[in-house]
C-alpha cells in the first residue's frame, strides 16, 4: 500500500482540440481526410436513436474515437430513458476505454489493444518533453 502511495500517478496525456463540430471535439494532429471521415461519422451518430445501434457503433474500433465517444454517451443517455437496457453500461465503458481526449497512458494502451491501431494523434510526447524530466 505504501508503495502505491509513493508511486507517481500516471500522467494524463491530453490531445489538443482542432475544432468543435456539432458539439464534438475533433482531435488535432490528423490529416484532413481523417477529420472529414470523423465528421461524417458524427453526423451518422447524431441521426441514430436506437440504443442498441449506438452501442454497436461505440464498440466498433474501426470508427473514429470522436464519433465513438459521442455514440457511447448517446447510448447511455438513450438507455436511461428506458426501463430495460439492451446492453451493459459497464461493458460499454470497458470497450471504449482510451478514446477520450484526455486519458492516461495506461488507458491509451488499453484502447490501442482494443482498437488494434495506433493513430498519430494518440502518440504520447517523447520522454524528453515530459514535464517530470
Amino acid at each position: 500500500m505504501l508503495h502505491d502511495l509513493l508511486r507517481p500517478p500516471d500522467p494524463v496525456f491530453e490531445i489538443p482540440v482542432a475544432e468543435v463540430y456539432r458539439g464534438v471535439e475533433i482531435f488535432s494532429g490528423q490529416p484532413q481526410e481523417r477529420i472529414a471521415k470523423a465528421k461524417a461519422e458524427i453526423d451518422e451518430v447524431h441521426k441514430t436513436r436506437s440504443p442498441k445501434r449506438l452501442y454497436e457503433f461505440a464498440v466498433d474500433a474501426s470508427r473514429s474515437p470522436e464519433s465513438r465517444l459521442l455514440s457511447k454517451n448517446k447510448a447511455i443517455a438513450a438507455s436511461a430513458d428506458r426501463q430495460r437496457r439492451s446492453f451493459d453500461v459497464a461493458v460499454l465503458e470497458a470497450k471504449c476505454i482510451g478514446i477520450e481526449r484526455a486519458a492516461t497512458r495506461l488507458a491509451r494502451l488499453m484502447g490501442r489493444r482494443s482498437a488494434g491501431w495506433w493513430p498519430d494523434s494518440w502518440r504520447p510526447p517523447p520522454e524528453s518533453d515530459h514535464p517530470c524530466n
Partner: protein
Amino acid sequence: MQEDTETPAKPRRPRATGRKNGRPTMREAELRRLAEFDARLVLVAIAQDATAPAGSRVSACRTLLGLAGDGQPLQDDGLDGLDDLSRRAVARMRRPPDAT
C-alpha cells in the same frame, strides 16, 4: 469666330435636404449611433434598474448569463439541428470525468 471664353465654374447650390451645412446626413447619424450602441450595456442597465419590471430584469439577466465574458455569444457548436437526445449526449460528453 468664336472666342474661347471660359466661364468660371458656378458653385453648386447645396441640395435642399433640410439640414444645415456640416451636419451629418440621417444615414451617417444612424450609422454613428449604431456604432456607439452596446447591447451589453443596455442589458446591464435594465438588469440594474430597480424600477423596471421584475420580468424584464430577469430576462436581461438570463441574456447576460448567456453571453461570454467578452460580450460575444457563447460558442456556436452547431447544436441547432440536434434533437434532445443528442443534446444530452453532448452535455454528457462535456462533463468532467469525475462528475457523477
